[in-house]
Structures are given as structure tokens and as C-alpha cells.
């Protein structure tokens, strides 16, 4: 079946607008994606027909809302290939998911142990572990990267050792686009008995993974990067890990019994879902998953790969154009600099021409420090982008460079 780009674009009304008098070209998808009609409709339909608080209600609306929410839990389970839907926790986002795990490990990790991440992580997969190590005396270690932005694996066996309690690694780098060799690193971690977590922020929109194939302990997704509503994330955890992990937040839903003296905690997934959940977000996310699957994640990934290739070749003809992150295996992200210009200036002048890219450090300051650069300009692609948009982007970029030089 052909990739029906016109149909796809028609599902995203936001794209059909002028910015600064020019047609909007939205290339900031790694930060957040746009939402299709199906998602917005699911939200309004929920609020106009079924809205109620979930789980404890005997009345019909509460029941409908609960059924809808639990239905999405099962949809997510299926989407990532988890064994049971109790292994799917709804959180506020990737950041919340990782903090949930890092907090719980505070009670489990020993001072002589270490946590391993990579030099390629988003702040949300760095700072929680720094905080954990600060609280517990454990050590934080990094898998380094080379000048292409790829993990250097030859000393993996020294970095991940028998004292490693956790390996937490992203699958696809949001600032360089590197697709990391998750299986290799997970295999080493499992060999020494470490727990494992994969940050799937940039996986969700671009690749379908199976958590049982990876045999990973924890995996996280963000709805807002997968065409779904803001304020919702997923934390997948293997049952035995979630049962071993102490609860994070205390409150409604996550308890079995509460007396003035002591509380006992509910079973998973509720143990990790304190408070009224983001029911609307869950339902919108269900619609987003359904929409993505109706297009086909592989078809989307292939479309994006073509755009990435096209843009890489096309922009390379601009004098002084330099790609930051040239890994052999990349997905959907083009980070670059142009000699003699500052990325912030490029961003401003592109915006003047309707082109939305992100500029700065992309919440990955250690990468920028390693490359000794102040940041990059980053174009990142989604299912609805086109080669024509890349042409507009290139023309606008050339104009900006001319103004700045």
C-alpha cells in the first residue's frame, strides 16, 4: 500500500496554517509531535459522554471511564509485547517514569554499587540517577561516545561490572538521532545481574519494540511524542521488578488499607498509580496508538528514513554545513551547525520564514560539552513531513545563512 501522505496531513489540522506569513513547516517533532483529529475527538468524546473518576465507582459513567482506561492499558501491553497489563503503569511522562524507578532503587542499592548510563542521555535519564547516587553513595558511570555520536563499547565489560545495579540507556538519542545497540548493552547488564531500563522517548514514534524480546526490566514511553496528549507516560516493568520496587508516591488508589498507624500497598499496577489518573490522557493516548498503527509504524519509520536521507544529502551542499551526530544507524533527527553562525540565530531566522526547528542543547548538555559546541539546530521528522517541506527548509536556511555571514 502506498504511503498516503495527503490523507495523513489532512488528519493534522495544525499543519494547515501560516506562520509569519509563510506556510508552517513543523520540524520539531523530537520535542513533541502534533495531534491527529482522532486524538482530539477521543478527548472531546470522553468529556462529552463518559467522564467520571475511575476504579472505585459503581455508577455507569465511572464504569465506562474505567473500562476505557483499562482497555488502553491492555492496548499498550499488546503494543510493546508485555506479558500482562498489570505491568503497564501510567505516569506523567518519561521523566516521571524514570524518577519512579530511581526513587524506588534508593531502598535497594548499596553504596558500593554503581549505576551505568551513557554519555548520550537526555537530562531526564541523567539527573534522577545523579540524585539517587547522591542519596545512597552509589557511583554513576558512563558509557562514552565517539566523535560520530556512537557508544564506545570496547570497555563495556569494565564499565558494567558485578557491582552494577542498573543500566539505564536510551534507545534513540533525541539530540543526535543515534540508534543505540540496546541488545548488546542489555546482554552485558544481564550477565552481571544488573537491572535494566530503556528510555524509549524517541522509540515510541519511530519503532515498534517488544519488551520480552529485549528482555528489559523497565521501558518508558511518552504520549506527547507519539501523537497523543501531554501529561501522560508509560512505565513498563516486569512483574517481579515492580513487585520488588518500593512504591513512589503515597495517596489514593495505591493503597490496600490505611489506618492512622500504617498503610499497606495495593497490587501492581495500582501500587504505582497514586491519585486520580490522567484518564483523558490515557484515552487520548489509546486513540493515538490506534492511529499510528493504522498507518503502520514500519511505514512511518521508512517514510522518515527517506526524509532523513533526503535532508542529509540536500543540506550538505550548503557551505559550512556540519552534521552533529553521524552514527551509522540513525533515526529521524538531523542536528547540525553551519560554520560562522550560531544555532540560535539560525532558529530565529528560520522561524521568520515559517520553519520550526529546535535550537540549543536539547536537554543533553553533556553531549554538547563533549563536542565543545554551544548547541545545535535540530530538524526532526514525523509521519506528516514531506520532501517539499525539506526543500522549503533548505531555501530558508540558505537565506538565513546569507543574512548572517
Amino acid at each position, binding site marked *: 500500500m502506498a504511503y498516503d501522505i495527503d490523507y495523513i496531513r489532512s488528519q493534522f489540522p495544525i499543519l494547515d496554517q501560516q506562520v509569519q506569513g509563510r506556510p508552517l513547516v513543523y520540524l520539531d517533532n523530537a520535542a513533541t509531535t502534533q495531534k491527529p483529529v482522532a486524538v482530539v475527538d477521543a478527548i472531546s468524546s470522553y468529556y462529552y459522554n463518559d467522564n467520571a473518576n475511575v476504579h*472505585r465507582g459503581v455508577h455507569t459513567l465511572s464504569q465506562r471511564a474505567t473500562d476505557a482506561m483499562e482497555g488502553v492499558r491492555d492496548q499498550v501491553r499488546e503494543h510493546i509485547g508485555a506479558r500482562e497489563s498489570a505491568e503497564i503503569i501510567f505516569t506523567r511522562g518519561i521523566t516521571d517514569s524514570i524518577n519512579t524507578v530511581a526513587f524506588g532503587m534508593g531502598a535497594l542499592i548499596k553504596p558500593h554499587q554503581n549505576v551505568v548510563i551513557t554519555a548520550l542521555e537526555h537530562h531526564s535519564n541523567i539527573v534522577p540517577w545523579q540524585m539517587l547516587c547522591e542519596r545512597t553513595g552509589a557511583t554513576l558511570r558512563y558509557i562514552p561516545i565517539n566523535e560520530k555520536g556512537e557508544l564506545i563499547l570496547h570497555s563495556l565489560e569494565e564499565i558494567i561490572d558485578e557491582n552494577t545495579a542498573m543500566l539505564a540507556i536510551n534507545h534513540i538519542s533525541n539530540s543526535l538521532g543515534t540508534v543505540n545497540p540496546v541488545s548488546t548493552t542489555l546482554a552485558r547488564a544481564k550477565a552481571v545481574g544488573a537491572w535494566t531500563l530503556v528510555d524509549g522517548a524517541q522509540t515510541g514514534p519511530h519503532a515498534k519494540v517488544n519488551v520480552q524480546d529485549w528482555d528489559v526490566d523497565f521501558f518508558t514511553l511518552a504520549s506527547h511524542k507519539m501523537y497523543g496528549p501531554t501529561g501522560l507516560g508509560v512505565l513498563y516493568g516486569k512483574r517481579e521488578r515492580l513487585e520488588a520496587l518500593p512504591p513512589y508516591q503515597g495517596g489514593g488508589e495505591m493503597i490496600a488499607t490505611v489506618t492512622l498507624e500504617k498503610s499497606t500497598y495495593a497490587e501492581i499496577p495500582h501500587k504505582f498509580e497514586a491519585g486520580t489518573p490522567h484518564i483523558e490522557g490515557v484515552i487520548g493516548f489509546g486513540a493515538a496508538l490506534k492511529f499510528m498503527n493504522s498507518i503502520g509504524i514500519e511505514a512511518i519509520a521508512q517514510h522518515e528514513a527517506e526524509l532523513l536521507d533526503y535532508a542529509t544529502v540536500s543540506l550538505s551542499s550548503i557551505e559550512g554545513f556540519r552534521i552533529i551526530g553521524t552514527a551509522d544507524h540513525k533515526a529521524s533527527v538531523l542536528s547540525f551547525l553551519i560554520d560562522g553562525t550560531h544555532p540560535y540565530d539560525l532558529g530565529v531566522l528560520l522561524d521568520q520564514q515559517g520553519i520550526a526547528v529546535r535550537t540549543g542543547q536539547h536537554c543533553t548538555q553533556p553531549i554538547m560539552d563533549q563536542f565543545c559546541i554551544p548547541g545545535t539546530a535540530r530538524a526532526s521528522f514525523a509521519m506528516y513531513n514531506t520532501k517539499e517541506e525539506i526543500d522549503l527548509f533548505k531555501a530558508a536556511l540558505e537565506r538565513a545563512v546569507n543574512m548572517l555571514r
Partner: protein
Amino acid sequence: MTISEKQAALVDEFAFFDNWMDKYNHIIEMGKSLKPLSDENKQEDLLVKGCQSKVWLKAEKRGEAVKFWAHADAIIAKGIVAMLIDIFDEQPAAEIAEAELGFIEEIGLKDHLSPTRANGLMSMIKQMKIYALAFA
């Protein structure tokens, strides 16, 4: 009667009633006529998790079969558990463990007895099957 025959009989019984009120009245009647569980059996470890009212379930092995007793502090929950006992009581453990319960849909209460309902129907069924598996 087998489990299937028991279910069919229940479905017939409910076919009499064409409105929710009569159906619930019947469930309430079933609840009221459930043989009592002695007070010393109303213990923590016999409580079924996941019901909004307290439901106690007790089982004993009788040869190949399983004997059940139950109590609930809410009368509708009691009626529901009474229906389940009507179906499963003194049936072979192996058959209880395997049974599919089509009657829920057929008596027209599916809407009212869905898996996430706070009434705990699913939890009760699960608990009865766990007992049966342990005895099988």
C-alpha cells in the same frame, strides 16, 4: 446437573424477568437465601480482594468435587456469589477450573457485571477457580 446445565437453568430463571428491577430483585432473593457462613469463618484470609463490599469465600475438597460457602455484607454481592455457588457447588474441581461462564452475558447483566466493576464478580470467580485448581 453439570456446570453448563446449571448455567442454562439460571438463564431460564432470569428469562422470566424483563426489567432490571425484577432481575435485581431476584439477585437479592438469591442473596437472602444463601446458606449462612458461621461467624468464625468471617476471617481476613477468606476475604475476596477487589470487591467494594466484604465477600468471604470458603471451599473444601469433597473427593473430586469442591464444596463452597460464602457471605457478603452487601446483599447484591451476596446474590452474585450465591449465583456462582449455585453453579459451582459440588462440581468436579477440574471442571470448575476450566469453566466458561456464558450465563453472565445471557442473563442480560453483562453491562452490570463487567470485569472492572467494583462488585468483584471477576474476583469471586477467580478465587473459586484458584480453590478448584488447588484441589484438582
